[in-house]
């Protein structure tokens, strides 16, 4: 039996919310990164599900691109986190707060 299309939207929205919640609460930079992954994957769920719904491959293709992007983003992100770690001896994102106001 086919799952009704709305449920994908709900799932996606739920994952997005979880990711957002993670971003707002996590202090560890890596956890922050993972939360962003969740956000992206929420989008991916939409894309893939509706690719089926609309009957074209655009969504699928775009999901692949997003996945690739996510990987690139993580690569850059880890690099920056390393730099931060070198400068602040820490990867707590709230520690790096010398510039403000």
């Amino acid at each position: 039996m086919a799952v009704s299309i709305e449920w994908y939207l709900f799932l996606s929205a739920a994952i997005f919310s979880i990711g957002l919640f993670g971003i707002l609460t996590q202090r560890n930079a890596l956890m922050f990164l993972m939360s962003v992954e969740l956000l992206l994957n929420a989008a991916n769920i939409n894309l893939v599900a509706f690719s089926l719904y609309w009957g074209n491959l655009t969504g699928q293709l775009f999901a692949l691109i997003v996945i690739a992007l996510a990987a690139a983003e993580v690569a850059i992100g880890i690099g920056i986190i390393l730099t931060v770690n070198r400068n602040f001896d820490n990867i707590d994102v709230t520690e790096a707060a010398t510039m403000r106001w």
Partner: protein
Amino acid sequence: MVGALAAGVPLFGPGIEAAELTALFPLLTFIIIVFFGSYLPLKGAIPGIAATGGALLVSLWGVADIATGAGPRHETLLTFVEGVAGEGVTLTFGILIDPLAILMLTIVSLISFLVHIFSLGYMNDEGEIDLPRYYAGLSLFTFSMMAFVFSDNLLMSFVFFELVGLCSFILIGFWFREAGPPSAAKKAFLVTRFGDYFFLIGVVAVLGTFGTAQFAGSESFVTIATEALETGATEGMTTFLGFGEQAWITVIGLLVLGGVLGKSAQFPFHTWLPDAMEGPTPVSALIHAATMVAAGVYLVARMYGFYVLSPTALSIIALVGGFTAFFAATMALVKQELKQVLAYSTISQYGYMMLALGGGGYVAAVFHLTTHAIFKALLFLGAGSVIIAMHHKENMWEMGGLRSEMRVTYLTFLAGSLALAGIFPFAGFWSKDEVLYETLVHGLGGSPVLLVAYTFGALAVVLTGFYTFRMVFLTFHGEPRSELAEDPEPVRWNVKFPLAVLGVLSVVAGFLNMGVLKDIIGEENLFLHEFLDGVTMDADLDAAGLSAHHYAEVLESNFAAGYEVAGLSPLGPGALATVLAVVPVIGAWYLFRGPDVDPVMTKLGGLRTLLMNNYYQDEYQVWLATGVTLPIAKVANKFDQGIIDGLVDGTGGVSLFAGERFRRIQSGVVTNYAALLTLGFLLLVLIFALVGGWI
């Protein structure tokens, strides 16, 4: 020659044709002195004497012209501001020479000429510095006064009215290194400026009402106003603020009168004149006695055709004049300084002239103006002579017995005093008597206000005789009361010559117009009366509306002032005036003649204090300036700095404060950023979800 006279052709036409030279000579002198004064011999006195002498010749020539029948001269010299075709008035400078103007020109040039000569003794010989400034001031004054006199329109009058005020300021403050003179100069200018404020409104009102400010001719505002009242033809006249024609004429007249009262030092604007005595004495003689102060009275005479249209204005003029004559005379009673007495006397005498004008005595006013100019200039110059002798001490109580050492000064001063006191047959007698007579007959004709004014005037005669001879006796009679008085410094010809000229004139000037005897010698032999009537001239004077009998005619018309003349012989009032004048002179002789003079005036007690303090007139005027205006200014300044500027700066302050708050949003913690970003985004979503109805 005789034929020409018979045909009424002027004998010396060029005299009035060249009348503007009376102003141009001094102007040229002024320019020369300003640029080269310090290189000139006698520091500019020579060109000054030459210029005023030239002006005197031209004026006398003009008098001869008019006396021999030359018509009045009225022409535009310079268009100042050209009105655009049909819209906006055209402002011009022009020249109007009629008997009144030429007479005044003569007086001004004569006095100015003599004062220049006198200044050689008073200023040059005394070793004063900065003399070019002094002579430049005198020249500029003479120029301005002349131009004022021959102005053919009210705006031009105002222009030179102000300029003589400037000269007065400069000359009063000549000794600027001391504290007194600059302050007096400021006061003189400020008080007269206050009067001029009303004058200027009047000028503007005249221009706005009539579209012209010309004094004479069929296009003049005087003629338009007369016709408007006489025939009801009001096309040429626009009244404002819903006033009727006559009421509006009264308003304008009173506004112009503001300037008159200021310049002629009439109550309540008289306070500046006594202070103005801080200036050099020749200046006092020229400006603050004979000429500039006369400008106010002259102005009323100049536009008398306008004033006679308004009974209200005339009554006010008469009342102010009469009151001032009396009021100022009371203050002169107790003054201890020579020039102060003369100053209050001047105020008082100008009161007489105003009284005459208000009382319908146009000729009387001009007559008194003439004689007063002569004898008051004489008295001031005489006082100057005494001051030289006393090494610039002015207190009469330090003088006494000077007559023996200073014969010329004494005799001429005496002549002047007799004229001032109105003793027969000196100049002042004739003119003052005529003033009082004219007021009386018009008053008896049905104007009770004039009778009140007359009473003031008559009382003032008594006071005048008393204070004049108190002054004479204290100064010249008795024994010297100080070392200086025992050995006064001698004066030279340059002091004595002007005194002699004026002394003679003080005796004879009255014969110009022996009004009191008119029933005896016949009205046609009153020279000044005939002169001002233009009898010797063509009918032009009437056409221009400038003759004395034209004024009298309008004065007695019902559409205008509506004065009536009571039938009364001048002999009776003349006799009364003589008695009123002689009695106090005798009184003064009784009180002040002896070697040890008793300061009797101190017995007046509190009244004397009041008089010495000038009825506290100065105090309240100073209070108006520093006690009212200045505090308001300070409050305005506080308001400005605190509230208005405070608002401006406050806006800045609030912005900066807001800026401080706004920048705190940026906390530096990246998770806060994420939270705020999300929050902001959700807010947007919420707004649009509600507006767009997604939910």
